């Protein structure tokens, strides 16, 4: 029933305004799935904590995927975990976004060469919107990643992609 399922072929003024409103709403309330994997999860927690305060951007952790809008893949994804992450991703209702946080999630990081049990990049399993580099990224870097994601959402449209 999500409104984004419907696509409009002509881009008139009304749609553009509605676009703006919807994008604004989505980008200012990105609820993350409260879900930590490894070292980066600690930095993610630090980002939610008082000093950096994720809540300023309207980001609050929801523990169930059904109510979340974004996953922050915070840490090493092992092969055993990858299937779980895929399932979690599928459980999130559309529209959904993914921030890949840290080297491990980007491409396996320090484990890319000898890590026989490490997935070499979360983008092999689910599509990633923003890659935040760092090992682990500073909280500010994660916030910057979120700003990048917001920028991306701002440019989305209800109109058909071909127009």
């Amino acid at each position, binding site marked *: 029933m999500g409104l984004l399922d419907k696509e409009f072929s002509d881009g008139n003024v009304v749609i553009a305004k509605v676009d703006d409103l919807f994008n604004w709403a989505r980008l200012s309330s990105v609820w993350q799935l409260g879900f930590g994997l490894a070292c980066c999860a600690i930095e993610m927690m630090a980002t939610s904590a*008082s*000093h*950096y*305060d994720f809540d*300023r951007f309207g980001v609050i952790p929801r523990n169930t995927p059904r109510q979340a809008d974004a996953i922050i893949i915070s840490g090493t994804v092992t092969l055993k975990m990858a299937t779980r992450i895929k399932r979690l991703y599928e459980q999130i209702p559309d529209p959904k976004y993914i921030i890949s946080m840290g*080297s491990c999630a*980007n*491409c*396996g*990081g*320090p484990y*890319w*060469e000898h890590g026989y049990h490490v997935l070499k*990049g979360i*983008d092999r399993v689910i599509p*990633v*919107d*923003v*890659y*935040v*580099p*760092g*090992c682990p*990224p*500073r*909280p*500010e*870097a994660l*916030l*910057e*990643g979120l*700003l*990048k994601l917001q920028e*991306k959402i701002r440019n989305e449209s209800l109109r058909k992609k071909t127009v």
Partner: protein
Amino acid sequence: MKQYLKNTWYGIWTVLIGMKITFKHLFTPAVTIQYPDVKVPLPERVRNRLYVNIDDCIGCDQCSRACPVNCIEIETVKSLPGENLGTTSNGKKKALWVTKFNIDIAKCCYCQLCVPPCPTECIYMTDVYEFSEFERDNLVYKFANLTEEEAVEKKSNYEKFQAEKEASRQVGAAASAKPETPVKTQQENKNE
């Protein structure tokens, strides 16, 4: 019975103490750093994105060997005797064209093990941390300042030079006796 009343009292009292503390905090100023608007200065030793001052790089490959995750990729071509590559800022003479100096920042683990071995201190960690990307390929940083054509040219120059040298040596070798051959094979191995 006494225990019962004590429990009740203790329950209410500790709740009130807790409420007093949180109420006090309601009016203490927040410690939040409002990131995009306010950026706190980072300490000078901070370890974030790697940077290579390629003008100072002599292509010695030390950093790449020190890296535990092998995220630094260096290719070099020897310079010709006539070419002057200049010197680094601490006076070392450069002898190699650095045709490729790629750091895959996505793999980097920010351990700073690559920094101390560098003889010219040209690789170091900066305080830049805001460089998230939409595409992962953009996270491969290319520091070599030679263009691709230039790199190809240098390579071919060197090969030409090598071939000429080889040819002249062969002429010399033909003139003199045979025992020089093992040296030649060694050189060939090196070229590979």
